[in-house]
Protein backbone atom coordinates (compact mmCIF):
# COMPACT_ATOMS: atom_id res chain seq x y z
CA UNK A 1 0.00 0.00 0.00
CA UNK A 2 1.63 3.15 -1.20
CA UNK A 3 -1.00 5.25 0.58
CA UNK A 4 0.45 4.63 4.05
CA UNK A 5 4.00 5.96 3.46
CA UNK A 6 2.52 8.89 1.55
CA UNK A 7 0.16 9.58 4.46
CA UNK A 8 3.13 9.58 6.84
CA UNK A 9 4.92 11.91 4.43
CA UNK A 10 1.96 14.28 4.35
CA UNK A 11 1.85 14.27 8.17
CA UNK A 12 5.57 15.09 8.32
CA UNK A 13 5.21 17.76 5.63
CA UNK A 14 2.29 19.48 7.38
CA UNK A 15 4.13 19.28 10.72
CA UNK A 16 7.30 20.78 9.24
CA UNK A 17 5.60 23.83 7.69
CA UNK A 18 5.98 25.92 10.84
CA UNK A 19 9.60 24.77 11.30
CA UNK A 20 10.64 25.64 7.77
CA UNK A 21 9.67 29.29 8.17
CA UNK A 22 12.85 31.34 7.83
CA UNK A 23 13.61 32.96 11.18
CA UNK A 24 11.53 32.57 14.33
CA UNK A 25 7.95 31.54 13.43
CA UNK A 26 6.58 33.14 16.60
CA UNK A 27 8.09 36.50 15.74
CA UNK A 28 6.88 36.15 12.14
CA UNK A 29 3.37 35.44 13.43
CA UNK A 30 3.37 38.35 15.86
CA UNK A 31 5.00 40.73 13.39
CA UNK A 32 3.63 44.22 13.76
CA UNK A 33 2.03 43.54 17.15
CA UNK A 34 5.19 44.60 19.08
CA UNK A 35 4.91 41.69 21.51
CA UNK A 36 6.63 41.69 24.89
CA UNK A 37 9.14 38.87 25.52
CA UNK A 38 6.54 37.33 27.87
CA UNK A 39 3.95 37.23 25.10
CA UNK A 40 6.47 35.63 22.73
CA UNK A 41 7.33 33.03 25.35
CA UNK A 42 3.66 32.36 26.01
CA UNK A 43 2.93 31.91 22.31
CA UNK A 44 5.91 29.59 21.99
CA UNK A 45 4.58 27.51 24.83
CA UNK A 46 1.05 27.47 23.38
CA UNK A 47 2.41 26.11 20.11
CA UNK A 48 4.70 23.70 21.92
CA UNK A 49 7.71 25.20 20.17
CA UNK A 50 9.71 25.19 23.41
CA UNK A 51 9.80 21.38 23.31
CA UNK A 52 12.40 19.27 21.48
CA UNK A 53 11.41 18.46 17.87
CA UNK A 54 10.68 14.76 18.38
CA UNK A 55 8.30 15.53 21.27
CA UNK A 56 6.58 18.19 19.20
CA UNK A 57 6.07 15.66 16.39
CA UNK A 58 4.87 13.06 18.88
CA UNK A 59 2.24 15.37 20.33
CA UNK A 60 1.29 16.53 16.82
CA UNK A 61 0.64 12.90 15.78
CA UNK A 62 -1.27 12.23 19.01
CA UNK A 63 -3.37 15.32 18.36
CA UNK A 64 -4.11 14.28 14.77
CA UNK A 65 -5.12 10.81 15.96
CA UNK A 66 -7.62 12.39 18.37
CA UNK A 67 -8.83 14.89 15.78
CA UNK A 68 -7.17 17.80 17.60
CA UNK A 69 -5.21 20.05 15.26
CA UNK A 70 -4.54 22.81 17.78
CA UNK A 71 -5.98 26.27 18.09
CA UNK A 72 -6.10 29.03 15.50
CA UNK A 73 -3.91 31.96 16.57
CA UNK A 74 -6.11 34.69 15.12
CA UNK A 75 -9.52 33.24 15.91
CA UNK A 76 -8.67 31.39 19.11
CA UNK A 77 -10.97 28.59 17.98
CA UNK A 78 -10.08 24.90 17.46
CA UNK A 79 -8.67 24.32 13.95
CA UNK A 80 -10.82 21.21 13.53
CA UNK A 81 -14.07 23.13 14.03
CA UNK A 82 -12.94 25.83 11.56
CA UNK A 83 -12.21 23.11 8.99
CA UNK A 84 -15.44 21.24 9.72
CA UNK A 85 -17.51 24.32 9.01
CA UNK A 86 -15.86 24.93 5.67
CA UNK A 87 -15.20 21.52 4.23
CA UNK A 88 -18.74 20.98 2.97
CA UNK A 89 -18.90 23.97 0.58
CA UNK A 90 -15.49 23.00 -0.85
CA UNK A 91 -16.61 19.42 -1.46
CA UNK A 92 -19.87 20.69 -2.93
CA UNK A 93 -17.96 22.89 -5.38
CA UNK A 94 -15.40 20.23 -6.29
CA UNK A 95 -18.01 17.53 -6.89
CA UNK A 96 -20.18 19.88 -8.95
CA UNK A 97 -17.10 20.90 -10.96
CA UNK A 98 -16.17 17.26 -11.46
CA UNK A 99 -19.72 16.46 -12.59
CA UNK A 100 -19.54 19.18 -15.20
CA UNK A 101 -16.07 18.07 -16.31
CA UNK A 102 -17.27 14.47 -16.72
CA UNK A 103 -20.49 15.34 -18.59
CA UNK A 104 -18.83 17.85 -20.94
CA UNK A 105 -15.65 15.82 -21.30
CA UNK A 106 -17.37 12.56 -22.15
CA UNK A 107 -19.83 14.12 -24.59
CA UNK A 108 -17.08 16.01 -26.42
CA UNK A 109 -14.72 13.03 -26.40
CA UNK A 110 -17.33 10.54 -27.66
CA UNK A 111 -18.61 12.88 -30.38
CA UNK A 112 -15.04 13.47 -31.58
CA UNK A 113 -14.10 9.78 -31.47
CA UNK A 114 -17.14 8.65 -33.44
CA UNK A 115 -16.10 10.77 -36.42
CA UNK A 116 -12.33 11.21 -36.16
CA UNK A 117 -10.89 13.98 -38.36
CA UNK A 118 -14.35 15.32 -39.20
CA UNK A 119 -15.44 18.89 -38.48
CA UNK A 120 -17.09 17.73 -35.23
CA UNK A 121 -13.76 16.31 -34.14
CA UNK A 122 -11.85 19.45 -35.13
CA UNK A 123 -14.36 21.65 -33.34
CA UNK A 124 -14.35 19.56 -30.16
CA UNK A 125 -10.56 19.28 -30.02
CA UNK A 126 -10.10 22.95 -30.92
CA UNK A 127 -12.44 23.84 -28.06
CA UNK A 128 -10.47 21.50 -25.80
CA UNK A 129 -7.21 23.23 -26.74
CA UNK A 130 -8.64 26.63 -25.88
CA UNK A 131 -10.39 25.65 -22.64
CA UNK A 132 -7.33 23.87 -21.31
CA UNK A 133 -5.37 27.11 -21.74
CA UNK A 134 -7.88 29.33 -19.92
CA UNK A 135 -7.03 29.88 -16.26
CA UNK A 136 -10.11 28.88 -14.21
CA UNK A 137 -10.29 32.25 -12.48
CA UNK A 138 -10.45 34.18 -15.77
CA UNK A 139 -13.09 31.83 -17.13
CA UNK A 140 -15.00 32.58 -13.92
CA UNK A 141 -14.72 36.33 -14.56
CA UNK A 142 -16.00 35.88 -18.13
CA UNK A 143 -18.91 33.75 -16.90
CA UNK A 144 -19.82 36.37 -14.28
CA UNK A 145 -19.67 39.11 -16.93
CA UNK A 146 -21.89 37.18 -19.33
CA UNK A 147 -24.34 35.16 -17.23
CA UNK A 148 -24.59 37.22 -14.06
CA UNK A 149 -24.09 40.85 -15.05
CA UNK A 150 -25.36 40.91 -18.64
CA UNK A 151 -27.99 38.18 -18.81
CA UNK A 152 -28.80 38.03 -15.10
CA UNK A 153 -29.41 34.28 -15.19
CA UNK A 154 -27.29 33.39 -12.17
CA UNK A 155 -26.05 35.29 -9.12
CA UNK A 156 -22.45 36.52 -9.43
CA UNK A 157 -21.26 35.52 -5.98
CA UNK A 158 -22.41 33.81 -2.85
CA UNK A 159 -22.70 30.73 -0.76
CA UNK A 160 -24.78 27.62 -1.20
CA UNK A 161 -25.95 25.21 -3.86
CA UNK A 162 -28.48 25.41 -6.68
CA UNK A 163 -28.22 28.49 -8.85
CA UNK A 164 -25.35 29.89 -6.82
CA UNK A 165 -23.24 26.84 -7.56
CA UNK A 166 -23.64 26.90 -11.36
CA UNK A 167 -21.07 29.54 -12.32
CA UNK A 168 -18.35 28.45 -9.85
CA UNK A 169 -18.78 24.82 -10.88
CA UNK A 170 -18.66 25.72 -14.58
CA UNK A 171 -15.48 27.76 -14.19
CA UNK A 172 -13.88 24.92 -12.26
CA UNK A 173 -15.10 22.08 -14.47
CA UNK A 174 -14.74 23.33 -18.04
CA UNK A 175 -10.92 23.35 -18.05
CA UNK A 176 -10.83 19.78 -16.74
CA UNK A 177 -13.49 18.66 -19.22
CA UNK A 178 -10.98 19.40 -21.99
CA UNK A 179 -8.46 17.02 -20.43
CA UNK A 180 -11.11 14.30 -20.08
CA UNK A 181 -12.38 14.89 -23.65
CA UNK A 182 -8.91 14.41 -25.13
CA UNK A 183 -8.34 11.23 -23.21
CA UNK A 184 -11.79 9.77 -23.94
CA UNK A 185 -11.29 10.51 -27.63
CA UNK A 186 -7.85 8.91 -27.98
CA UNK A 187 -8.80 5.83 -25.94
CA UNK A 188 -12.12 5.34 -27.65
CA UNK A 189 -10.55 5.56 -31.11
CA UNK A 190 -8.04 2.91 -30.09
CA UNK A 191 -10.72 0.63 -28.65
CA UNK A 192 -13.03 1.08 -31.66
CA UNK A 193 -10.27 -0.42 -33.85
CA UNK A 194 -10.20 -3.62 -31.77
CA UNK A 195 -11.44 -6.91 -33.13
CA UNK A 196 -14.11 -7.47 -30.50
CA UNK A 197 -15.84 -4.30 -31.69
CA UNK A 198 -15.88 -5.74 -35.20
CA UNK A 199 -17.31 -8.95 -33.76
CA UNK A 200 -19.96 -7.04 -31.85
CA UNK A 201 -20.97 -5.15 -34.96
CA UNK A 202 -20.94 -8.20 -37.20
CA UNK A 203 -23.24 -10.09 -34.86
CA UNK A 204 -25.73 -7.33 -35.48
CA UNK A 205 -25.66 -5.35 -32.24
CA UNK A 206 -27.11 -1.86 -32.31
CA UNK A 207 -24.41 0.81 -32.55
CA UNK A 208 -25.51 2.25 -29.19
CA UNK A 209 -24.86 -1.08 -27.45
CA UNK A 210 -21.51 -1.47 -29.21
CA UNK A 211 -20.49 1.97 -28.09
CA UNK A 212 -21.68 1.99 -24.49
CA UNK A 213 -21.45 -1.68 -23.50
CA UNK A 214 -18.36 -2.74 -25.40
CA UNK A 215 -16.22 0.21 -26.40
CA UNK A 216 -16.73 2.80 -23.71
CA UNK A 217 -16.36 0.38 -20.84
CA UNK A 218 -12.94 -0.65 -22.12
CA UNK A 219 -11.86 2.88 -22.82
CA UNK A 220 -12.82 3.88 -19.30
CA UNK A 221 -9.87 2.64 -17.25
CA UNK A 222 -7.27 5.29 -18.17
CA UNK A 223 -10.01 7.92 -17.99
CA UNK A 224 -10.86 6.91 -14.42
CA UNK A 225 -7.20 7.22 -13.42
CA UNK A 226 -7.15 10.68 -14.91
CA UNK A 227 -10.37 11.68 -13.14
CA UNK A 228 -8.95 10.47 -9.83
CA UNK A 229 -5.76 12.44 -10.30
CA UNK A 230 -7.69 15.50 -11.39
CA UNK A 231 -9.97 15.40 -8.35
CA UNK A 232 -7.11 16.52 -6.13
CA UNK A 233 -6.01 19.14 -8.62
CA UNK A 234 -9.56 20.38 -8.83
CA UNK A 235 -9.68 20.87 -5.07
CA UNK A 236 -6.52 22.96 -5.44
CA UNK A 237 -8.13 25.07 -8.15
CA UNK A 238 -11.24 25.39 -5.98
CA UNK A 239 -9.11 27.54 -3.65
CA UNK A 240 -8.91 30.20 -6.36
CA UNK A 241 -12.53 29.85 -7.46
CA UNK A 242 -13.75 30.27 -3.87
CA UNK A 243 -11.93 33.59 -3.64
CA UNK A 244 -13.38 34.77 -6.97
CA UNK A 245 -16.97 33.88 -6.10
CA UNK A 246 -16.65 34.92 -2.45
CA UNK A 247 -17.62 31.44 -1.27
CA UNK A 248 -16.68 30.41 2.24
CA UNK A 249 -14.72 27.20 2.03
CA UNK A 250 -11.41 25.51 2.80
CA UNK A 251 -9.57 27.40 0.07
CA UNK A 252 -10.64 30.77 1.36
CA UNK A 253 -9.70 29.67 4.87
CA UNK A 254 -6.24 28.67 3.64
CA UNK A 255 -5.60 31.95 1.84
CA UNK A 256 -6.77 33.99 4.85
CA UNK A 257 -4.62 31.95 7.21
CA UNK A 258 -1.60 32.45 4.93
CA UNK A 259 -2.21 36.21 4.90
CA UNK A 260 -2.61 36.24 8.69
CA UNK A 261 0.32 33.85 9.19
CA UNK A 262 -1.89 31.63 11.31
CA UNK A 263 0.35 28.54 11.17
CA UNK A 264 -1.77 26.02 13.13
CA UNK A 265 -4.65 26.76 10.76
CA UNK A 266 -2.39 26.50 7.67
CA UNK A 267 -1.04 23.15 8.92
CA UNK A 268 -4.54 21.83 9.53
CA UNK A 269 -5.94 22.82 6.13
CA UNK A 270 -2.88 21.45 4.30
CA UNK A 271 -3.15 18.17 6.18
CA UNK A 272 -6.81 17.84 5.26
CA UNK A 273 -6.10 18.57 1.59
CA UNK A 274 -3.30 15.99 1.58
CA UNK A 275 -5.51 13.33 3.19
CA UNK A 276 -8.36 14.00 0.75
CA UNK A 277 -5.94 13.66 -2.16
CA UNK A 278 -4.62 10.33 -0.88
CA UNK A 279 -8.13 9.03 -0.30
CA UNK A 280 -9.35 10.04 -3.73
CA UNK A 281 -6.49 8.02 -5.25
CA UNK A 282 -7.35 5.09 -3.03
CA UNK A 283 -11.00 5.18 -4.10
CA UNK A 284 -9.90 5.18 -7.74
CA UNK A 285 -7.80 2.05 -7.12
CA UNK A 286 -10.87 0.31 -5.73
CA UNK A 287 -13.04 1.54 -8.61
CA UNK A 288 -10.68 -0.11 -11.09
CA UNK A 289 -11.62 -3.57 -10.03
CA UNK A 290 -15.28 -2.73 -10.59
CA UNK A 291 -14.68 -1.42 -14.09
CA UNK A 292 -12.12 -4.04 -14.99
CA UNK A 293 -12.67 -7.37 -13.21
CA UNK A 294 -9.27 -8.52 -14.53
CA UNK A 295 -7.62 -6.29 -11.94
CA UNK A 296 -7.42 -7.86 -8.50
CA UNK A 297 -5.98 -6.63 -5.27
CA UNK A 298 -4.60 -9.11 -2.86
Amino acid sequence: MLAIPTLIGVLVASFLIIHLVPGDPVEVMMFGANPTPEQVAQMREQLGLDQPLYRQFGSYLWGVARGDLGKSIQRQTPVTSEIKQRIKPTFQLTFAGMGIAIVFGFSMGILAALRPNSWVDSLAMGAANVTVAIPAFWLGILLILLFALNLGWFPATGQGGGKRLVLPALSLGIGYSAIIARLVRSNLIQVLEKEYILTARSKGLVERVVLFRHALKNALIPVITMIGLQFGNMMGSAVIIEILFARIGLGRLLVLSILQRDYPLIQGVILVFGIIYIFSNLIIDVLYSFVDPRIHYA
Partner: protein
Amino acid sequence: MVSALLCIRLSYRKLEKMFFKSGMKKKIDEMSQSHSRGWQGVKDSLVRFGQNRAALVSSFVLLIFIVIAIFGPTLAPHDPIKIGIGPRLTPPNKDFLLGTDQFGRDVLSRVLYGTRLTLQASIIAVVVAAGIGIPLGLIAGYAGKWTDNIISRFIDILLSFPGILLALIVVAILGTGLGKVQIAVGVSLIPAYARLVRGSVLSAKENVYVEAARAGGCSTFRIATRHILPNVFVPLLVLTTTAIGWAIIIATSINFIGLGVQPPTPEWGADLGAARSYLGVAWWPATFPGLAILITILSINLIGDGLQNALDPRLKHRAVIEK
Protein backbone atom coordinates in the same frame (compact mmCIF):
# COMPACT_ATOMS: atom_id res chain seq x y z
CA MET B 1 30.46 -2.27 -33.11
CA VAL B 2 28.28 -3.14 -30.15
CA SER B 3 29.45 -6.71 -29.92
CA ALA B 4 33.04 -5.55 -30.27
CA LEU B 5 32.54 -3.18 -27.36
CA LEU B 6 31.02 -5.94 -25.28
CA CYS B 7 34.04 -8.13 -25.91
CA ILE B 8 36.24 -5.28 -24.93
CA ARG B 9 34.36 -5.04 -21.65
CA LEU B 10 35.69 -8.44 -20.66
CA SER B 11 39.27 -7.34 -20.67
CA TYR B 12 38.82 -3.64 -20.39
CA ARG B 13 41.40 -3.06 -17.70
CA LYS B 14 44.12 -4.13 -20.09
CA LEU B 15 42.76 -2.12 -22.94
CA GLU B 16 41.77 0.96 -20.97
CA LYS B 17 44.91 2.90 -21.77
CA MET B 18 44.58 2.07 -25.43
CA PHE B 19 41.08 3.52 -25.51
CA PHE B 20 42.20 6.80 -24.15
CA LYS B 21 44.91 7.02 -26.82
CA SER B 22 42.67 6.05 -29.65
CA GLY B 23 39.95 8.46 -28.64
CA MET B 24 37.61 5.55 -28.03
CA LYS B 25 35.89 7.38 -25.21
CA LYS B 26 34.89 10.11 -27.61
CA LYS B 27 33.59 7.51 -30.02
CA ILE B 28 31.42 5.96 -27.34
CA ASP B 29 30.08 9.41 -26.57
CA GLU B 30 29.26 9.89 -30.24
CA MET B 31 27.64 6.53 -30.38
CA SER B 32 25.13 7.27 -27.66
CA GLN B 33 24.51 10.67 -29.13
CA SER B 34 23.84 9.18 -32.53
CA HIS B 35 21.27 7.10 -30.73
CA SER B 36 19.49 10.33 -29.93
CA ARG B 37 19.76 11.04 -33.66
CA GLY B 38 22.41 13.83 -33.73
CA TRP B 39 22.31 16.85 -36.00
CA GLN B 40 20.55 15.17 -38.89
CA GLY B 41 17.80 14.25 -36.47
CA VAL B 42 17.54 17.87 -35.34
CA LYS B 43 17.25 19.00 -38.97
CA ASP B 44 14.54 16.44 -39.70
CA SER B 45 12.68 17.51 -36.58
CA LEU B 46 12.86 21.16 -37.59
CA VAL B 47 11.38 20.32 -40.98
CA ARG B 48 8.59 18.35 -39.34
CA PHE B 49 7.96 21.21 -36.90
CA GLY B 50 7.80 23.64 -39.83
CA GLN B 51 5.09 21.55 -41.46
CA ASN B 52 2.85 21.93 -38.41
CA ARG B 53 0.94 25.12 -39.13
CA ALA B 54 -0.54 25.55 -35.65
CA ALA B 55 2.87 25.18 -34.02
CA LEU B 56 4.43 27.60 -36.50
CA VAL B 57 1.81 30.29 -35.95
CA SER B 58 2.10 29.76 -32.18
CA SER B 59 5.87 30.20 -32.33
CA PHE B 60 5.35 33.49 -34.12
CA VAL B 61 2.80 34.62 -31.51
CA LEU B 62 5.11 33.64 -28.67
CA LEU B 63 7.95 35.52 -30.35
CA ILE B 64 5.77 38.63 -30.35
CA PHE B 65 5.13 38.18 -26.63
CA ILE B 66 8.88 37.77 -26.01
CA VAL B 67 9.56 40.95 -27.97
CA ILE B 68 6.87 42.71 -25.90
CA ALA B 69 8.44 41.36 -22.72
CA ILE B 70 11.82 42.78 -23.72
CA PHE B 71 10.69 46.07 -25.26
CA GLY B 72 7.43 46.52 -23.30
CA PRO B 73 8.57 49.74 -21.61
CA THR B 74 9.36 51.36 -24.97
CA LEU B 75 6.21 50.08 -26.62
CA ALA B 76 3.84 51.15 -23.83
CA PRO B 77 2.07 54.42 -24.68
CA HIS B 78 1.73 55.51 -21.02
CA ASP B 79 3.24 55.05 -17.59
CA PRO B 80 1.61 51.85 -16.23
CA ILE B 81 1.82 52.90 -12.57
CA LYS B 82 0.99 56.62 -12.61
CA ILE B 83 -2.50 57.21 -11.28
CA GLY B 84 -4.93 59.46 -13.16
CA ILE B 85 -3.33 59.41 -16.61
CA GLY B 86 -6.86 59.31 -17.97
CA PRO B 87 -10.37 59.39 -16.48
CA ARG B 88 -11.21 56.38 -14.29
CA LEU B 89 -12.70 53.29 -15.97
CA THR B 90 -12.95 54.73 -19.49
CA PRO B 91 -13.97 52.16 -22.10
CA PRO B 92 -11.49 51.42 -24.90
CA ASN B 93 -11.08 54.48 -27.14
CA LYS B 94 -8.46 55.97 -29.45
CA ASP B 95 -6.40 57.49 -26.61
CA PHE B 96 -6.56 54.41 -24.43
CA LEU B 97 -6.86 51.46 -26.81
CA LEU B 98 -7.80 48.98 -24.07
CA GLY B 99 -9.43 51.53 -21.76
CA THR B 100 -8.37 52.67 -18.29
CA ASP B 101 -8.65 50.95 -14.92
CA GLN B 102 -10.10 52.01 -11.56
CA PHE B 103 -7.18 54.40 -10.94
CA GLY B 104 -7.26 55.90 -14.41
CA ARG B 105 -4.20 53.92 -15.50
CA ASP B 106 -3.81 52.74 -19.09
CA VAL B 107 -4.79 49.04 -19.35
CA LEU B 108 -2.74 48.52 -22.55
CA SER B 109 0.43 49.80 -20.89
CA ARG B 110 -0.18 47.58 -17.88
CA VAL B 111 -0.74 44.51 -20.08
CA LEU B 112 2.46 45.28 -22.02
CA TYR B 113 4.50 45.76 -18.83
CA GLY B 114 2.88 42.71 -17.28
CA THR B 115 4.14 40.50 -20.13
CA ARG B 116 7.69 40.78 -18.84
CA LEU B 117 6.77 39.96 -15.26
CA THR B 118 4.59 36.98 -16.18
CA LEU B 119 7.04 35.43 -18.65
CA GLN B 120 9.95 36.10 -16.33
CA ALA B 121 8.16 34.49 -13.39
CA SER B 122 7.35 31.37 -15.40
CA ILE B 123 10.88 31.05 -16.77
CA ILE B 124 12.47 31.47 -13.32
CA ALA B 125 10.01 28.91 -11.93
CA VAL B 126 10.90 26.42 -14.65
CA VAL B 127 14.64 27.01 -14.11
CA VAL B 128 14.17 26.34 -10.37
CA ALA B 129 12.11 23.20 -11.12
CA ALA B 130 14.54 21.87 -13.73
CA GLY B 131 17.60 22.84 -11.66
CA ILE B 132 16.39 20.76 -8.72
CA GLY B 133 14.20 18.18 -10.46
CA ILE B 134 16.65 17.02 -13.17
CA PRO B 135 19.56 16.25 -10.80
CA LEU B 136 17.15 14.57 -8.36
CA GLY B 137 15.72 12.35 -11.11
CA LEU B 138 19.16 11.62 -12.52
CA ILE B 139 20.55 10.61 -9.13
CA ALA B 140 17.49 8.54 -8.25
CA GLY B 141 17.40 6.73 -11.59
CA TYR B 142 21.13 6.19 -11.89
CA ALA B 143 22.04 5.35 -8.31
CA GLY B 144 19.03 3.11 -7.67
CA LYS B 145 18.61 1.19 -4.40
CA TRP B 146 18.04 3.23 -1.23
CA THR B 147 19.03 6.55 -2.82
CA ASP B 148 16.26 6.04 -5.36
CA ASN B 149 13.90 4.97 -2.61
CA ILE B 150 14.47 8.09 -0.52
CA ILE B 151 14.22 10.50 -3.47
CA SER B 152 11.14 8.72 -4.85
CA ARG B 153 9.33 8.90 -1.50
CA PHE B 154 10.17 12.61 -1.29
CA ILE B 155 8.71 13.11 -4.76
CA ASP B 156 5.62 11.09 -3.78
CA ILE B 157 5.04 13.43 -0.85
CA LEU B 158 5.34 16.48 -3.10
CA LEU B 159 2.96 14.78 -5.53
CA SER B 160 0.37 14.21 -2.84
CA PHE B 161 -0.45 17.92 -3.02
CA PRO B 162 -2.00 19.44 -6.14
CA GLY B 163 0.31 21.92 -7.93
CA ILE B 164 -1.40 25.11 -6.81
CA LEU B 165 -1.60 23.88 -3.23
CA LEU B 166 2.07 22.93 -3.16
CA ALA B 167 2.91 26.42 -4.37
CA LEU B 168 0.64 27.88 -1.66
CA ILE B 169 2.42 25.78 1.00
CA VAL B 170 5.74 27.27 -0.11
CA VAL B 171 4.19 30.76 -0.04
CA ALA B 172 2.91 30.00 3.48
CA ILE B 173 6.46 29.13 4.51
CA LEU B 174 8.40 31.83 2.69
CA GLY B 175 5.83 34.61 2.84
CA THR B 176 4.16 36.61 0.09
CA GLY B 177 5.84 38.55 -2.72
CA LEU B 178 6.92 38.19 -6.33
CA GLY B 179 10.28 36.45 -5.80
CA LYS B 180 8.80 34.00 -3.34
CA VAL B 181 5.95 33.12 -5.70
CA GLN B 182 8.50 32.36 -8.44
CA ILE B 183 10.29 29.93 -6.14
CA ALA B 184 6.97 28.48 -4.94
CA VAL B 185 5.80 27.79 -8.49
CA GLY B 186 9.21 26.27 -9.25
CA VAL B 187 8.94 23.92 -6.26
CA SER B 188 5.47 22.83 -7.37
CA LEU B 189 6.93 21.74 -10.72
CA ILE B 190 9.90 19.79 -9.29
CA PRO B 191 8.06 16.43 -9.12
CA ALA B 192 7.21 16.54 -12.84
CA TYR B 193 10.89 16.95 -13.78
CA ALA B 194 12.24 14.47 -11.26
CA ARG B 195 9.74 11.78 -12.26
CA LEU B 196 10.29 12.19 -15.97
CA VAL B 197 14.09 12.13 -15.71
CA ARG B 198 14.09 9.19 -13.30
CA GLY B 199 11.85 7.13 -15.59
CA SER B 200 13.86 7.92 -18.70
CA VAL B 201 17.15 7.20 -16.93
CA LEU B 202 15.88 3.84 -15.73
CA SER B 203 15.10 2.79 -19.30
CA ALA B 204 18.19 4.41 -20.85
CA LYS B 205 20.46 2.77 -18.27
CA GLU B 206 19.74 -0.64 -19.74
CA ASN B 207 21.09 0.32 -23.15
CA VAL B 208 24.20 -1.42 -24.45
CA TYR B 209 26.05 1.82 -25.11
CA VAL B 210 25.84 2.73 -21.43
CA GLU B 211 27.42 -0.57 -20.59
CA ALA B 212 30.03 0.11 -23.26
CA ALA B 213 30.74 3.52 -21.79
CA ARG B 214 31.19 2.02 -18.36
CA ALA B 215 33.48 -0.60 -19.85
CA GLY B 216 35.40 2.13 -21.60
CA GLY B 217 36.20 3.66 -18.24
CA CYS B 218 33.88 6.66 -18.30
CA SER B 219 33.15 8.15 -14.90
CA THR B 220 29.65 7.93 -13.46
CA PHE B 221 29.23 11.68 -13.90
CA ARG B 222 30.27 11.45 -17.55
CA ILE B 223 27.94 8.54 -18.22
CA ALA B 224 25.05 10.32 -16.55
CA THR B 225 25.55 13.66 -18.29
CA ARG B 226 26.96 12.64 -21.69
CA HIS B 227 25.28 9.32 -22.38
CA ILE B 228 22.04 9.19 -20.45
CA LEU B 229 20.91 12.82 -20.32
CA PRO B 230 20.84 13.29 -24.15
CA ASN B 231 18.25 10.51 -24.28
CA VAL B 232 16.04 12.39 -21.91
CA PHE B 233 16.40 15.57 -23.94
CA VAL B 234 13.29 15.17 -26.11
CA PRO B 235 10.80 14.45 -23.32
CA LEU B 236 12.46 17.16 -21.23
CA LEU B 237 12.01 19.75 -23.95
CA VAL B 238 8.35 18.84 -24.34
CA LEU B 239 7.86 18.89 -20.56
CA THR B 240 9.49 22.31 -20.34
CA THR B 241 7.06 23.86 -22.81
CA THR B 242 4.13 22.38 -20.88
CA ALA B 243 5.71 23.41 -17.57
CA ILE B 244 5.97 27.04 -18.70
CA GLY B 245 2.22 26.94 -19.37
CA TRP B 246 1.53 25.45 -15.92
CA ALA B 247 3.86 27.96 -14.31
CA ILE B 248 1.97 30.85 -15.89
CA ILE B 249 -1.38 29.47 -14.67
CA ILE B 250 -0.16 28.83 -11.11
CA ALA B 251 1.76 32.13 -10.82
CA THR B 252 -1.08 34.26 -12.19
CA SER B 253 -3.55 32.40 -9.93
CA ILE B 254 -1.48 33.17 -6.82
CA ASN B 255 -1.08 36.78 -7.92
CA PHE B 256 -4.82 36.88 -8.58
CA ILE B 257 -5.70 35.95 -4.99
CA GLY B 258 -3.30 38.62 -3.75
CA LEU B 259 -0.50 36.47 -2.32
CA GLY B 260 2.03 37.41 -4.98
CA VAL B 261 3.02 40.76 -6.48
CA GLN B 262 1.70 43.73 -4.60
CA PRO B 263 0.06 46.81 -6.12
CA PRO B 264 0.85 48.91 -8.06
CA THR B 265 3.14 46.44 -9.92
CA PRO B 266 1.55 45.55 -13.28
CA GLU B 267 1.03 41.79 -13.56
CA TRP B 268 -1.73 39.97 -15.48
CA GLY B 269 -3.04 37.87 -12.59
CA ALA B 270 -2.85 40.67 -10.02
CA ASP B 271 -4.55 43.11 -12.41
CA LEU B 272 -7.41 40.65 -12.94
CA GLY B 273 -7.69 40.30 -9.18
CA ALA B 274 -8.02 44.06 -8.81
CA ALA B 275 -10.48 44.38 -11.71
CA ARG B 276 -12.78 41.80 -10.10
CA SER B 277 -14.26 44.46 -7.80
CA TYR B 278 -15.34 46.62 -10.75
CA LEU B 279 -16.88 43.92 -12.95
CA GLY B 280 -20.30 45.56 -12.80
CA VAL B 281 -18.98 48.84 -14.20
CA ALA B 282 -16.13 47.87 -16.48
CA TRP B 283 -15.42 44.68 -18.39
CA TRP B 284 -12.18 45.78 -20.05
CA PRO B 285 -9.70 45.70 -17.13
CA ALA B 286 -10.97 42.18 -16.37
CA THR B 287 -10.80 40.96 -19.96
CA PHE B 288 -7.57 41.97 -21.68
CA PRO B 289 -5.01 40.68 -19.15
CA GLY B 290 -6.90 37.35 -19.20
CA LEU B 291 -6.84 37.30 -22.98
CA ALA B 292 -3.08 37.81 -22.84
CA ILE B 293 -2.76 34.82 -20.47
CA LEU B 294 -4.96 32.68 -22.73
CA ILE B 295 -3.04 33.50 -25.92
CA THR B 296 0.34 32.94 -24.27
CA ILE B 297 -0.60 29.57 -22.77
CA LEU B 298 -2.40 28.43 -25.92
CA SER B 299 0.61 29.20 -28.10
CA ILE B 300 3.00 27.52 -25.64
CA ASN B 301 0.80 24.40 -25.52
CA LEU B 302 0.56 24.21 -29.31
CA ILE B 303 4.34 24.62 -29.61
CA GLY B 304 4.69 21.79 -27.08
CA ASP B 305 2.40 19.53 -29.13
CA GLY B 306 4.30 20.45 -32.29
CA LEU B 307 7.66 19.74 -30.67
CA GLN B 308 6.48 16.39 -29.39
CA ASN B 309 5.30 15.32 -32.83
CA ALA B 310 8.39 16.69 -34.56
CA LEU B 311 11.03 15.39 -32.19
CA ASP B 312 9.70 11.94 -31.58
CA PRO B 313 8.45 10.31 -34.79
CA ARG B 314 7.87 7.14 -32.77
CA LEU B 315 4.87 8.93 -31.35
CA LYS B 316 3.50 9.65 -34.78
CA HIS B 317 0.80 7.03 -34.53
CA ARG B 318 -0.26 8.32 -31.13
CA ALA B 319 -0.13 11.87 -32.41
CA VAL B 320 -2.57 11.01 -35.17
CA ILE B 321 -4.91 9.49 -32.65
CA GLU B 322 -4.61 12.34 -30.19
CA LYS B 323 -4.38 14.88 -32.94
